[in-house]
């Protein structure tokens, strides 16, 4: 039996600097996971992904990543890989997104 769909966000890397980006509700891109559009319906998620994949001129490697709402009601990563992507490298707390958190 196919596994039940779980909520996702659309994520990719920015073409120019490679930074992790997330698709927002407005259809633009944010560098913050919390600003991502949490997609709870599978068909919709696939449609948003297709829209992202069509934006080749500004991003690389769009995909759907599991996410859920955190205590503040914002989308948060589930898998540790996505958590690292949303934050930055653990050996330099002043590098990557965490520098601005």
């Amino acid at each position, binding site marked *: 039996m196919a596994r039940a769909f779980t909520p996702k966000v659309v994520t990719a890397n920015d073409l120019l600097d490679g930074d992790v980006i997330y698709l927002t509700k407005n259809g633009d891109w944010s560098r913050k996971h919390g600003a991502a559009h949490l997609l709870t319906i599978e068909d919709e998620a696939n449609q948003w992904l297709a829209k992202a994949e069509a934006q*080749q001129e500004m991003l690389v490697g769009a995909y759907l990543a599991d996410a859920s709402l955190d205590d503040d009601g914002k989308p948060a990563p589930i898998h*540790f890989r996505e958590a690292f*992507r949303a934050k930055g490298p653990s050996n330099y707390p002043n590098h990557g997104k965490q520098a601005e958190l």
Partner: protein
Amino acid sequence: MYIYSDFDAEFVRSRVKQFRSQVERRIDGSLTEDEFKPLRLMNGLYLQLHAYMLRVAVPYGTLDAPKMRKLADIADKWDKGYGHFTTRQNIQFNWPLLKDVPDILDALADVEMHAIQTSGNCIRNVTADHFSGAAADEIEDPRPTAELIRQWSTDHPEFAFLPRKFKVAVTGSPNDRAVTKAHDIGLRMVRNDAGEAGYEVIIGGGLGRTPMIGKILRDFLPKADLLPYLEAVLRMYNLHGRRDNKYKARTKILVHETGLETLRGWVEEAFIEHKSSHESPSEALVARIESAFTPPPLDTNIMDFSSLDKKIADDPILRSWVEVNTDEHKNPNYTIVTISLKPIGGTPGDASSSQMRVMADLAERYGHNELRVSHEQNVILPHVRRDDLPAVHAELKKAGLATANVGLISDIIACPGMDYCALATARSIPIAQEIAERFEDMKQARDIGPLKIKISGCINACGHHHVGHIGILGLDKAGVESYQITLGGDGTENATIGQRTGPGFGADDVVSAIERIVDCYMDLREGPDETFLKSYQRTGADPYKIALYGENARVESLKETVNAA
């Protein structure tokens, strides 16, 4: 140091120009990512988790002061002020912007460096013993051989699309510091009965998901036959290597599935056929390459070091550093200094731009302008006069580069892992940092003695965990970082793949597990002369399994013995 010919310089510049145009076309939307990706990878540009990463080739790990300074300038101007030295003797920059990469490549070309063939299914950067040209046990300097292979393999049209990547390592010493048995081709300089230097050719070594120790393809290959023979090997690999499954495409699988004898037959036949038509490199070219590696003018007079020895003996910090971080040079007036890039709690292999400049200055002032990057992620000053050691140590200390831990428990190899790498399944760096911190007492580390811990953040094994005395492999186990431990690996001429101890440990438990292994060794060893590896080879894995998993492991072990009987 090899100096580029006009051809080399023009070739590298023309590649930069091509890539500049390719980057422009990617940014303006003329090229899709599918079109651009193979082009950027051919120029060493990867996309990692958080940013692009540029992998710069350091041929056979050899640098001089201007090259090192240029790397520092690149780190400052286009990156975050540091670089990461890798287990392939290369350097990686973790934060370049796409638009800047052509400028970085032009800056590299200014000092005769590039990033070509640091990715892709081609012949990669040729690695060599990091003590080459200086080691007391050396038959010949392996770097002229490595440079000849570099020239032959660069942009070689027949071998640009191999079944998979192809790695060559060369050592000129019987004590193998280049891990030749874990490469597609390992070349070990040997002498035949007539006293002539040639190569023992090893094929099919490799780590990754299917680790294998290389096998001897040829006992003795005369030096003059090197290129036609390598061409025969590559041709057979290109023809017969598997292309249906990337996990079975390396030479190790070809050797395993074809059998060494059959493969040897193919290679010898191709070699004979090829040798007659192959245009050997001209004597002038070979002479030009060899002259680039002429040993520096070292003082051969008998020197009195008694006052130096007293000075070292009277200064415990200096003494400890000299004892741990220097090795025997072929000229007794000199020594080989290994600069540890493993400060306690630091990132293995990282050097800041200011540290790079200090290393460049020291090479110029005290080291005949020579530097080497080791696959163990340290930097070597190969020719330091012994009486300059106190001055070198003082400068290194000021720069935070005087950690006296080379070859000890905190001198850990770690791949970038999931802090950077898109392929990783778990992090490596924080585990290395935590182990080093747990064993930061240098007296304790010296009591434990030589111990190589190697950590990889995925089965591709860039951290060489299979050949670590203690190997650690980070995996994703149902959404949680999990670390498998192997014991008894060895990357030397006695190369051995480590054995798995059992179930993995969580990120919070793995360092305590390493501590239990070390405690177990200290209890078991017959004396300080019995190193961890020797002791493990004597006792086997059982006591370590009990130390790691408790008495249940003893019951399991007994069951295995009964079942086997």
